[in-house]
């Protein structure tokens, strides 16, 4: 490997991430199709309305299972620290590329960590409410009051998740060198030093 590159994600991590990502895109498209009439045409991508209704929950299960696999691997790196609170307070510096003024980040910065937990909570909510409203298998077993709460919560958590993913995708485009980490698995030493100095020290054995 090029000595200027260091490994950030193993092959298995990357495949896992992209399986979740593909499932998410399919779920967002099929879910939004049933959420707002102006997007109903998206059901055509899935073979029509009934097929969209049939496929959506199965893709959802798939995403949940693979998200859990990903989360089990990464949750430890996403525990918030005191430095992270300071990072969040300086969100203005973050947004204006003044990264040198920010406290040092570990493997993940505070923004990534918050997003991780938001996603985790949304995934659990989506799974639970999704099972409740799953036609024709489970929905008939629940009371109509529970169905109503579940449809609203499902839509709400999906909204938060989609919003989170918009931020996630944009951050990857904005911070150059990030997409490569998830595509090829590697980042440059400069990238690691600038964005994740704490992590860089760890993996490079104290090298600066």
């Amino acid at each position, binding site marked *: 490997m090029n000595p200027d590159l260091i490994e950030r994600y193993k092959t298995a991590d990357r495949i896992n991430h992209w399986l979740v990502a593909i499932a998410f895109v399919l779920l967002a498209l099929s879910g939004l199709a049933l959420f707002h*009439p102006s997007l*109903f045409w998206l059901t055509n991508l899935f073979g029509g309305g009934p097929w969209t209704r049939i496929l959506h929950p199965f893709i959802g299960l798939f995403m949940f299972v693979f998200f859990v696999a990903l989360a089990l691997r990464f949750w430890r790196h996403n525990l918030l620290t005191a430095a992270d609170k300071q990072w969040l307070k300086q969100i203005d510096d973050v947004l204006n590329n003044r990264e040198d003024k920010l406290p040092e980040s570990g493997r993940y910065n505070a923004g990534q960590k918050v997003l991780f937990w938001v996603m985790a909570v949304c995934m659990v909510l989506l799974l639970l409410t999704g099972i409740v409203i799953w036609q024709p298998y489970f929905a008939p077993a629940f009371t109509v009051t529970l169905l109503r709460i579940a449809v*609203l919560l499902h839509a709400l958590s999906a909204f938060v998740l989609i919003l989170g993913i918009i931020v996630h995708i944009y951050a990857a485009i904005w911070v150059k060198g990030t997409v490569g980490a998830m595509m090829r698995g590697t980042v440059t030493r400069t990238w690691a030093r600038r964005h994740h100095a704490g992590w860089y020290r760890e993996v490079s054995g104290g090298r600066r």
Partner: protein
Amino acid sequence: MALQSLDIKQRSATTTPPPGVRETAKVAKLIDISKCIGCKACQSACMEWNDLRDQIGETRGYYDNPRDLSENSWTLMRFYEVEPQGSLEWLIRKDGCMHCADPGCLKACPSPGAIVQYSNGIVDFHEENCIGCGYCVTGCPFNIPRISKKDSKAYKCTLCSDRVSVGLEPACVKTCPTGAIVFGAKEDMIDHAEARIEDLKERGYQNAGLYDPQGVGGTHVMYVLQHADKPELYGLPKDPKVSPVVSLWKGVAKPIALLLLGVAVIGSFLHYVKVGPNEAEGEQEKKTKEPA
């Protein structure tokens, strides 16, 4: 049911006006519970006209048969033994779609044209457009739509929209032997009900009244109740409304959520335009150059 209708007032999941040049008079079915003898002729007529046969079920020791509404039983006599004024009364209510002026099922439905409301007030399911999601179930304040296990489509009383469109009354009305079910212009039905209510009051039912709940904008199936102050005696909700949860979900939340997602995308793009990329490599060059 008919694919071409020019008198549609509302169409599910449709944001532009549906074909509605033809205005028809508002109709209503009036069910006078004080005249009902529980013969179930209306159930038979409904099966007969709509060519539906429910499965033979099991008795539970009382008169309701079948046990509940289903995709094959669009109307059902429900029997209540109650003592609202000290003595036993056997209240028999013909249950089925109320054809709300403000239909929760239509509001909740995500599939364009799966539920329509004609200008005469009839709310009809067009099963060929139904995707089987069950959202209509959450929207209905009267627990009416049933999803078929056979084809995953939602079914309910059509108020015999096919008969009404050619000037006939619904099958249940035609068959009712006591005249407990009548059908006509909604105004006329209200007049008719008033005469009935007066009669009932004279006979000791001081609380007799019309059930035409305004919480759902009024209904196109109305009841004359002996005890209109206690609709719960008949298994009817006192003040039915489309659940606020459903109104929020398929009301304001819908456009606002979409708007905010759009703002997030455009906002991200503009952020890039404003501050530009966050590049590590550029920094490196600067740093190596600076000390020199």
